[in-house]
Structures are given as C-alpha cells and as structure tokens.
C-alpha cells in the first residue's frame, strides 16, 4: 500500500492566499483523479469547504479530538492525499503539535510523506517565519510559495536578504503563484466553485452556468501557470505517479474549456 501523503498549507500571517493555493492543489489532484480529502481549520465557519464541500471537513486542529480525526485515519482513509489548510496564526503551533504526537518522526522514518506549502507574504515577517518553520521539517518536502495572485509586490523584501534566508534550507523549493485579474478571482469567489468548474462553465453543483468567457479564459491561463509550477517542482512525485496522471497541464485545462463549449 502506498504511503499516506499529508500536505499542509499554511502561513502564520493572514491574507496571503493559503486557501487559494489549497484550492489549486485540490483541483490539480482532482484533475489527475488522485483521491484526496481536505481539512479546513478555519473552525467553525470554514473557508475551503465553500469551494470543495464534498471532500472537505472543517476541524479545530488545536483540539485533540480533531487531531485524531485527521491523523489516526491516515492509514485507513481511501484518500491518497490529505490536505490541511491551516488558518492564519496557528501554523507554528500546528507543527509543534505534529512534532509532539510523533507525526514528524513518522515522516522522518518514511512511514508517511509530509509536504509543507508555506505561503509567504510580502512583509519581512514572512522571512522570519521561514526560519521558525524550517527547524520542524527535517526530511519533509518544503515548498516556499510566493503568491502574486493579488499583485503582491513583495516590496519589503530585499532579494539578497531573501536569498540568504532561502539558502539556509537546501531542500526548500520555491513556487511562484502568478497574478490573476481581480475581477476573475472575485467571480470565482462569488460562484464558490472549484477553479476547474468555473473554467468548464459550470456552477458549484456541476450544472451548466453562464460565466464570462473572458474571465474563464483568464482563470484557465492562470491555473495553467500554477499547475505548471506544480509540474516543475514534481509535486506528483510525492504522491506517486499513476497512469494517466502525467498528461501535461495545458491540454487538461483546454479539455475543460472545450467541454464547456460543446
């Protein structure tokens, strides 16, 4: 049996796009038919659940009961990947809890695969977060995500400073999320559907919709670029490549658009 894969998406800073990145990962895995479940730690209201209600459960990751719900079921769940969207301010404490329950050790021993998508904000505080976070990770796959979706300029960053931080973690891999037109982004928010549904001109419930082709085109182009980044960093290697899962990103999304047209 394949090792369970746990993907944590987090940042201590709020509003840096954790849920957006989680959504792109869920869409990416769904397009490759990789069974995935997600936990939304924006407890009790939830944010990720709005977009992927069928596979997402809202949990209080600080409670032992909910930690059991996530981690004690890794072996028995039918999902190959468990994604946890960690709400702002609790990434360090969550990593701490993972260390305390022996989860990080299990990863180190190769019993499971653990990846962290650390979403960086534009402020210098994000660089300090990297230092703070990295000492938990050891053998985990560490992705540093620079999220430009809202045209973030990372104005406070001095590239030399960033590089000096970045080089401390030889295994860290950088991912860039490009900018998406604000109107297109907001429209998908309003629809509350996966990006792939929006591209395929479908509503959240999968029924045909009437979204603007222009907005769908922008979202498709943007998601192609995001998924290309996932392809580039060989994200699927974590999961174990399956037959049919390696098809390039662009044709996949074009097929969605074509399906919408037909």
């Amino acid at each position: 049996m394949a090792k369970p894969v746990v993907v944590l998406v987090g940042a201590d800073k709020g509003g840096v796009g954790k849920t957006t990145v989680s959504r792109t990962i869920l869409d990416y895995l769904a397009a490759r038919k990789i069974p995935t479940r997600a936990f939304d730690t924006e407890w009790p209201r939830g944010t990720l659940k709005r977009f992927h209600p069928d596979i997402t459960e809202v949990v209080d990751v600080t409670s032992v009961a909910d930690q059991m719900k996530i981690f004690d079921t890794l072996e028995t769940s039918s999902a190959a990947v468990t994604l946890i969207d960690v709400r702002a301010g609790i990434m360090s404490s969550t990593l701490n809890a993972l260390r305390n329950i022996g989860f990080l050790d299990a990863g180190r021993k190769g019993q499971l695969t653990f990846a962290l998508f650390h979403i960086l904000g534009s402020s210098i505080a994000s660089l300090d977060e990297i230092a703070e976070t990295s000492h938990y990770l050891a053998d985990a796959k560490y992705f540093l995500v620079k999220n430009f979706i809202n045209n973030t300029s990372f104005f406070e960053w001095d590239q030399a400073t960033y590089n000096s931080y970045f080089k401390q973690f030889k295994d860290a891999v950088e991912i860039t999320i490009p900018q998406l037109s604000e109107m297109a982004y907001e429209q998908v928010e309003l629809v509350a559907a996966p990006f792939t549904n929006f591209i395929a001109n479908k509503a959240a419930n999968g029924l045909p919709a009437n979204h603007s082709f222009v907005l769908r085109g922008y979202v498709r182009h943007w998601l192609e670029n995001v998924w290309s980044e996932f392809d580039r960093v060989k994200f699927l290697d974590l999961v174990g490549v399956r037959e049919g899962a390696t098809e390039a990103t662009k044709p996949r999304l074009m097929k969605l658009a074509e399906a919408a047209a037909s």
Partner: protein
Amino acid sequence: MSILSFDDEIEERGYDVRARRDAGGGTGPLYIVCSPRKSVGKTLLARLIAEFYFAHDRPIAAFDLADEGPQLSDFLPDVTTAVELGSMRGQMGFFDRLIGEKHAAKVVDVSHRMFRDFFVIANKIGILEEASRRGIEPIILFLIDPDEKSAGAYSILQRWFAEISLLPVRNQIVSNGIPYWGSFPNESPIHVALEVPLLSASVKNLIAQTSFSFARFQRTQSIGLPVRLDDELRGFIRRVFRQFCEMEQRRMCGDVRGHWSSSP
C-alpha cells in the same frame, strides 16, 4: 447629383443600411483586420468587408479598437461598437460578444497601437480557438508592409494561432515590391491572394468622406462623378468584392488546392 444627396436617393430605392437582413444564413465569420504599423489601410479594409456584407444584405457587426480618427465608427456608426480593452469590463463586453452572437459576421479593426494588447489577450484567453469551437471561423487579415516589425509580428501570429487562418493582404500603396510568399507566407487553408488596388487621389478623397458607402455607391447608377472616376471606383469595388467572394467561397467549401496537389 452631389454626394450629399446620395442618402436621399438610396432611401427612395428602399435600401437602408440600418436594417440588415441575413440573406445567407448560417454562422458568420470573424474577420480581424490588423497590422502593427500605422497608415497601411486597416480601416479601409475593415470598411470594405463590412460594405461587402451590406452589399449582400447580410448582417455584420463591426468593432473598432482604433484610438484616432478617422476610424471605423466614423464611417459605419450604425453597426460599429467602440472597444475599450484597457479594463476587464471592456474586455468582457467585447470578447464575450464576439463569440456570443453567431449569426452575424464580425469585423474587428485592430489599430496599430492595440495590436500587441489585442493579440496577447486573445492568446491568453484562447478567444480565437473558442470561436472556432463554436463554429465561428476567425480569419486574421494582416496588412503587410516592408517594415521588419511587420514580418516579425506576422511570424508571431502564425506561431500563436497555428490553427487559425492568417491571410496577408497587400495594399498596393504600401506593399509594392514585397514578394507574396517571402516574409508573409499564407499557410492557412484559405489560399487567396488579397489585394487593395491603387486609387487615384480624387477617388481617395471621395471615399475618405465619412458619409461615403461603397455598397450604396455600387447600387446606384450615378452620383455625378466624371466617368473616368466613376469607372475607376466601380472597378475598385468590383475587384475587392470579387476577392472577398472568393475568400468566402473557399472558407465555406474548404480550399481544394491542397487536396488536388496531394492527390496521386
């Protein structure tokens, strides 16, 4: 009769450019008239296409991306929509309409200043491929000229829109001496050589009047022009419209040249 009284006569004859009927039926194509260079005859070509449809009583919608006059909307105000690509709302209003309405043919006059933006957006959102999927055939009409920038732009469009018909158009005023298949090869399935013939200065002045309509002129016996100029202009319209007819036929029937040449 002066050119100013031309409208009255046309109305008496029952021809009204405001009420277009579709005589052809089916799905109208999408013509994109473009060049990265100014003053090569883009607006004239866009006008001629629209007038070709008027002449055949077929519906056409025109879109004007120019930002300096005289522009398409000055000549064809009744059927032309000014387009603003700078905002997302402008793009939605324009591109969504291009593919939303299938019945009428459409002609887009892409000014040299909007050339890059238009095609970058079109490539990004895949609008031309989407039009094709919906049965609206996009045809890019590229006015060629000797500038290297044009040859480079043409080659980029060929690469970006490999599945779309990209046709070089020679305006004889600006492109004399450019070999047809040199820097501007026509690799589209529509093999037709499009040319805007030369005109004398007097006729150029006449057609530069915003009230002038090629279709109305063609349907009228005389507007009081000297015979030489009348003949020249009628010959010009006939020649251009014949090329459009050929393009339409090849578009609808599929070009057979390639099939013949590949037959044993």
